[in-house]
């Protein structure tokens, strides 16, 4: 096999290269400064600057539908939109890391280095057209994260979270790799584009191929916390410092879904009814486990972790729809739109949690929110807005996310999934309303002082504005996403 790397490949991968180079700046400057930590603000600017350059390069060169490096990377609409969402979410999470007490210690330059490398892994993952490239992207992203969670502070929970995440993440990677080997064994290729052409026949005739593809999907299910492979999520989300949780709940989830979408959403697997039935049931179970689990939580971050499991279930509905779709890329567009709205809401929510934390080992329970509306009226208002949007109530952005998703499902005849989805939305209202009740409707002083985090507050306000405005103007955005898929 002749490998030729041309200028075009370099240009197409320029966002990754730029972000990788940017990630080296803080570390290098620390090295040249006698290993003394440079000012956190400068590190932050370097990190964010790198992400912005990457974002611009992605916006300019991405989305063309071309491939690079001998067809192991593809730059289509999925990688374009998911990349943009992931980079933006990562940037927001880094801003939160800069200000959160648990993460702004003396290792901030290392933290930014790892976060940026994690983003590089994400960009590889969203573009990967070869299962081995998927694996490389997945590992680069995850290894950086294991370290980030583990190094951040001395809190026992975070060590535990890091270890749990590491063990289960490796487990998932192993399953993924195992599945890949089966696929290679049966088809002689690991290229997603190539093998999906044959998949339609193979899933019906070749058990080994079906086994392999199922294991690959299973590996993703771990990453995106689909029940019953979700068990690590609440512990890790709770134990990790809040900005890291925000990072995992948004950027990591988005890119993992992107990779899953690329495997599932080609319609080539649709020939296997069994596989799709299993996926549908997984979606239903995930929604139920997430929502019912969230109801009984007392710890705020844990509750949000369960709610994010539930959201994975909703998104899986969209992925399945994209997989059986005849009508263009409606399902895939609805997934992108949902992920976009989900990221905005989730980042806002975790930004609020970050503001409420006094110290690096502060645990916020839902009861702590009592009377917050008196103390921090603007934050309480924004928090309520995020929760209402997460619950999917109009006219907030979250409603339109769900509307497009369920619309796609109904359009494909998966009405029963849509009905499960809306029933779960009602269940979710139970726990999304609880913080609002405590903030506004109970007397008694909130014992959380919180502190003023300027940039994080800006994040909160920006997210709130996004939710309010884009709820009304969701149509053009959705059309833009869908148009890019069709072209």
């Amino acid at each position, binding site marked *: 096999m002749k490998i030729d790397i041309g200028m075009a490949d370099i240009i197409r991968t320029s966002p990754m290269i730029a972000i990788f180079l940017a990630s080296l700046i803080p570390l290098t400057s620390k090295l040249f400064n006698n290993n003394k930590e440079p000012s956190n603000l400068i590190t932050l600017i370097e990190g964010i600057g790198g992400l912005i350059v990457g974002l611009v390069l992605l916006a300019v060169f991405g989305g063309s539908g071309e491939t690079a490096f001998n067809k192991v990377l593809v730059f289509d609409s999925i990688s374009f939109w998911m990349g943009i969402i992931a980079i933006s979410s990562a940037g927001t999470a880094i801003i939160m890391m800069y200000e959160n007490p648990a993460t702004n210690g003396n290792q901030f330059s290392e933290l930014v280095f790892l976060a940026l490398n994690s983003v590089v892994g994400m960009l590889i993952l969203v573009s990967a057209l070869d299962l081995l490239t998927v694996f490389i992207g997945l590992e680069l992203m995850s290894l950086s994260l294991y370290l980030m969670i583990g190094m951040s502070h001395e809190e026992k929970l975070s060590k535990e979270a890091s270890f749990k995440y590491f063990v289960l993440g490796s487990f998932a990677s192993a399953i993924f790799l195992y599945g890949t080997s089966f696929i290679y064994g049966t088809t002689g290729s690991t290229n997603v584009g190539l093998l999906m052409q044959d998949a339609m026949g193979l899933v019906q005739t070749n058990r080994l191929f079906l086994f392999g593809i199922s294991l690959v999907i299973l590996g993703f299910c771990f990453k995106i916390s689909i029940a019953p492979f979700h068990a690590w999520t609440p512990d890790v989300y709770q134990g990790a410092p809040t900005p890291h949780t925000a990072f995992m709940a948004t950027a990591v989830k988005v890119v993992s879904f992107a990779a899953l979408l690329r495997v599932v959403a080609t319609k080539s697997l649709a020939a296997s009814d069994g596989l799709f039935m299993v996926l549908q049931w997984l979606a239903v179970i995930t929604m139920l486990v997430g929502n019912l689990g969230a109801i009984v939580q007392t710890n705020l971050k844990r509750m949000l972790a369960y709610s994010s499991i539930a959201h994975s279930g909703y998104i899986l509905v969209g992925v399945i729809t994209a997989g059986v779709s005849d009508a263009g890329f409606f399902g895939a567009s609805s997934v992108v739109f949902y992920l976009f709205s989900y990221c905005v809401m989730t980042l806002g929510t975790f930004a609020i949690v970050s503001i409420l934390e006094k110290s690096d080992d502060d645990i916020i329970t839902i009861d702590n929110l009592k009377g917050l509306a008196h103390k921090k009226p603007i934050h309480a208002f924004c928090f309520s807005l995020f929760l209402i949007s997460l619950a999917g*109530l109009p006219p907030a952005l979250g409603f339109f996310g769900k*509307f497009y998703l369920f619309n796609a499902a109904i359009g494909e005849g998966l009405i029963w999934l849509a009905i499960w989805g*809306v029933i779960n939305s*009602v269940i979710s209202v139970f726990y999304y309303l609880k913080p609002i009740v405590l903030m506004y409707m109970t007397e008694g002083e909130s014992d959380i002082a919180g502190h003023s985090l300027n940039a994080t507050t800006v994040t909160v306000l920006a997210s709130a504005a996004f939710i309010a405005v884009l709820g009304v103007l969701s149509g053009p955005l959705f059309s833009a996403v869908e148009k890019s898929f069709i072209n």
Partner: protein
Amino acid sequence: MLLSTIVFLPIIFAFVVLVWPQAKTIRHIAFILSLLEFLISLIVLNKFDSGTAQLQLVEKQMWIERFGIQYFLGIDGISLWLVLLTTFLTPIIILASWNSIDKKLKGFHVAMFVLQSAMLGTFLAMDAVFFYVFWELSLIPMYFMIGIWGGSRRIYATIKFFIFTMAGSVLMLIAIIYLMYLTQQSSGQMSASLLEFYKVRIPFVGGSILNLQSLLFFAFALAFAIKVPVWPVHTWLPDAHVEAPTPGSVILAGVMLKMGTYGFLRWVIPLFPDAAEYWAWVFLVLGVIGIIYGALVAMVQPDIKKLVAYSSVSHMGYIIVGLFVFNEYGITGGLYQMLNHGVSTGALFLLIGMIYERTHSREISKYGGLAGVLPIFTIFFFIITLSSIAVPMTNGFIGEFLILLGLHQAKPIYAYFAVSGVVFGASYMLWMFKRVFFGEKGELVKDIHHPLKDLSLREISILTPLVILVFWMGLFPNQFLDYSKASVKHLVTNKNRYYLQIEDIKSGNLKQIENK
């Protein structure tokens, strides 16, 4: 632009209140603004052409093009009075909140205006998704209103209210999306517009619930039935009423419950005519049960507010049976009864709020002999009681009479049962009136250290417009009914060709549809 102004002006008012610098004058400014809104709605009444069943003052704009979802507002004889009822009650409610709401004034008025906007949007939206957005939006301010300013069990009540009503409406969302796909199938173009929905012929097979039209019918009907509320999904209502502050109760009884009956009239009956006719017995039976059950339970309530809350269940039962007989009398009566209930039950809750402010108790047994102490209050209460039990010359009589007439014409059996509600209604109201106002003075009334004060000028001016309406609507019903006559007639005679005909006569392709 007129309807847009009506719908969105309150949101702007909410912002005005939010940024208003002087806390002292918030009530005044809110009152003036709500009065302004009422005056603007009078312009709508003035511009309204009562001779036609057509949608009027239509505003149409593409909103989400991908799915054919429109920004679509319009008014006809069915929504006209409900819009006016909403704008009319709001200033009264703001005036009534003067004493009962004393904390977080800003928040209260913001919630009030957002709620007004959501309710008006529900009545005026003619696009299903647009309608759904307003429908759900109305839950949020009401949720805060009960939860922040309500009584001691307010959190339980507010969550129950929210979950019940939301659970009802989510299936409606699925049905709306499904209907959108049906429009795509039949015309090639997806749309959520009511007019396009009317054009869809939805397959119906009698005898089983498992056919498309029946399923869609029940998905919609459940949402509206919970809002009305129809027995047995009414249980959120007494809790919500008892825990809500007076203004919340008034808006809930006065307008929000009508969103449910309006939904039946606007969406369910014309969209699914075959299913509605086939399953009418379900709602007639439930309606009659509601009438009798509500009245019987009201009779044994020790708490006045709860009594009125259960009487709402009974009264709303009348409206439901009125709508489901599908003749002009029944539907006109149902429509009229919606307004009557808004006026008289709204007034009852206001009166109860006034006496509660004085004594901080709603227990009937603690009152007695109030007539001698508070003569003006007694007179007002008496008039409203008469209206509530539908004595001739009051508004209630016209509504109940028309409903029973329609019911008797179409389904006499149900009429025999429904009419018993009239007797029960009279008995529980009059019995309550007797216990509260006559007889020996109760412990709350006897207290000589804190003698009860009769109604203030502000309170009289709150109640006077309502009392005027009670008689006006009772004596000159035609002045109101004339506006809705054409719409109701059209609805009854054409069922789901309701607007279709008018639209298509204009564009000249009626023949083509006839041939189909």
